[in-house]
């Protein structure tokens, strides 16, 4: 049944993917050269921009893995039709592991706890850090934990890809059960690893401040970024076969509903953190928001409330909007920009009390993005867009019934 449909539909990604891959690589290399020059001239600013760009693109990688595992647990045509897009994004884990190395060279420039203790003037801070660096925030611990995260993410990506590739050929083995088993464990592992990674890599920029919902903020941000990215890619592919025949309005509608849900969860987590800290008004907590709501950073916070939540929320309430892949992809692009702005708002105020952006905040994320996209589109053209011999692929491959 499935094989018969295959004869008249080539499931490989269209040639445009190769073109985009080449262009992304050119952009990536040009901006990487500019970033390298910047790294020599202004290393502090370079590393801040690098952390923002790194977290932004890591979000698409890991978020895609999370949505993919969610699909394995819940099934549904919405996930089958973007499954290989998510898979290609997930398989950028090796690149992200490689791109993590520069951060190790910038540890003392980014993180106050990585500097020699006696170089810190304030005796209170020095005492606090002495305690922290002995227990958790040591350079050794940071590196060992990072290796551990990448091992987990890499292992999950490896098996999810290996079993998925088996379903491109006629096979007697049904992988549904093993996908389920590894995805259930994988989602739990992902929630824990991304929480710890967010604490290690971003929250520790200000070691005196803690928030217990911090990891979840990054988790939902990553899942939202990844879904928006998948919608943008499906929009690009929709102009060509085979996606023009696979992508039905019902699936786009589902992607729109998920975008609405993720935007709402993001706002819910952000608001919860803010409401609790605002209500408590304790000196060791509220400072984080005082920094981010004054000195020009406040308008960025307001922009996020309006354009990361309110406007997308209202647009996504509309049913015709959610069913139209063209309009949905425009909003998805916008939300990806908002994700980037959110990371700037989280990371940059650690270094400057007043609103302050550097060239590195723009150039370095573009450099990482160019390289990431080139690798992503290479991955995308390496496998068919749908695993034709998966038992649940027929739902997507069958033509819409009259």
């Amino acid at each position, binding site marked *: 049944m499935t094989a018969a449909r295959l004869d008249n539909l080539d499931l490989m990604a269209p040639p445009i993917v190769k073109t985009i891959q080449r262009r992304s690589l050119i952009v990536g290399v040009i901006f990487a050269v500019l970033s390298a020059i910047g790294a020599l001239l202004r290393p502090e600013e370079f590393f801040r921009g690098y952390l923002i760009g790194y977290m932004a693109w890591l979000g698409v990688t890991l978020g895609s893995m999370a949505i993919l595992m969610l699909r394995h647990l819940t099934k549904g045509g919405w996930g089958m039709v973007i499954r290989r897009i998510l898979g290609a994004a997930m398989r950028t884990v090796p690149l992200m592991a490689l791109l993590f190395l520069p951060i190790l060279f910038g540890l003392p420039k980014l993180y106050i706890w990585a500097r020699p203790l006696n170089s810190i003037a304030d005796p209170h801070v020095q005492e606090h850090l002495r305690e922290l660096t002995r227990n958790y925030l040591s350079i050794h611990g940071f590196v060992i934990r990072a290796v551990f995260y990448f091992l987990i993410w890499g292992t999950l990506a490896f098996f999810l890809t290996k079993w998925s590739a088996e379903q491109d050929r006629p096979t007697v083995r049904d992988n549904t059960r093993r996908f389920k088993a590894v995805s259930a464990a994988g989602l739990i592992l992902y929630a824990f690893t991304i929480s710890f990674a967010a604490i290690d890599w971003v929250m520790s920029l200000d070691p005196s401040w803690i928030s217990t919902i911090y990891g979840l903020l990054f988790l939902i941000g990553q899942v939202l970024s990844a879904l928006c990215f998948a919608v943008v890619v499906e929009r690009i592919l929709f102009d060509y076969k085979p996606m023009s025949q696979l992508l039905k309005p019902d699936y786009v509608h589902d992607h729109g509903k998920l975008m609405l849900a993720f935007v709402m969860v993001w706002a819910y987590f952000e*608001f919860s953190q*803010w*409401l609790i800290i*605002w*209500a408590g*008004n304790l000196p060791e907590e509220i400072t984080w928001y005082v920094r981010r709501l004054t000195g020009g950073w406040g308008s960025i916070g307001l922009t996020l409330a309006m354009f990361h939540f309110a406007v997308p929320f209202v647009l996504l309430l509309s*049913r015709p909007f959610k069913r139209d892949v063209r309009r949905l992809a425009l909003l998805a692009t916008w939300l990806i920009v908002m994700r980037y702005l959110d990371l700037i708002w989280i990371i940059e105020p650690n270094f400057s009390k007043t609103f302050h952006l550097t060239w590195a905040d723009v150039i370095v994320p573009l450099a990482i993005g160019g390289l990431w996209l080139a690798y992503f589109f290479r991955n995308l053209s390496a496998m068919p867009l749908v695993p034709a011999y998966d038992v649940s692929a027929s739902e997507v491959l069958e033509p819409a019934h009259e």
Partner: protein
Amino acid sequence: MKRTPIYGMMAEFDSPSDLVAAARRTYEAGYQKIDAYSPFPIEELAEAIGFHSNAVPLVVLIGGLIGCLSGYALQYWISVITYPINVGGRPLHSWPAFIVVTFEMTILFAGLAAVLGMLALNGLPMPYHPVFNVPRFAFATKDRFFLMIFSTDPKFNPVDTRRFLEGLGPRSISEVPS
């Protein structure tokens, strides 16, 4: 039973695809006041009888806005006007603290508006409906599919409409007394 004016003309079909095809042709023939009955939902049917949009989303939106405003107003009235208490030096009108209840009231009123609005727009509860005057209509809950042209339709005419429905190849045709 006393002979009453006609409520409409009803045709009976054997399969959902027959019903959808018949509904399409009826709509294309210019009949506007038509309805269809089936034991289970048929995706294409609403479109086939020319049913494009309904007012439920608007009712839900209005319900949600009423809930939102009343939730906020309730808290404002309590905390600022009738029972002002200084909590940790915060202003009486501390809007961040009002958001949660405002949100919950929005959802509650929107949800109630959805259920009640749907019932009202469907004219429910409805203790009497003329279609049940046709004994065969009982099969609409089992395995038969019915198409109805109401007598309020400007094109309706007992003779012509019956002839038109016969042309659709139904299993049977019944006149529905009101």
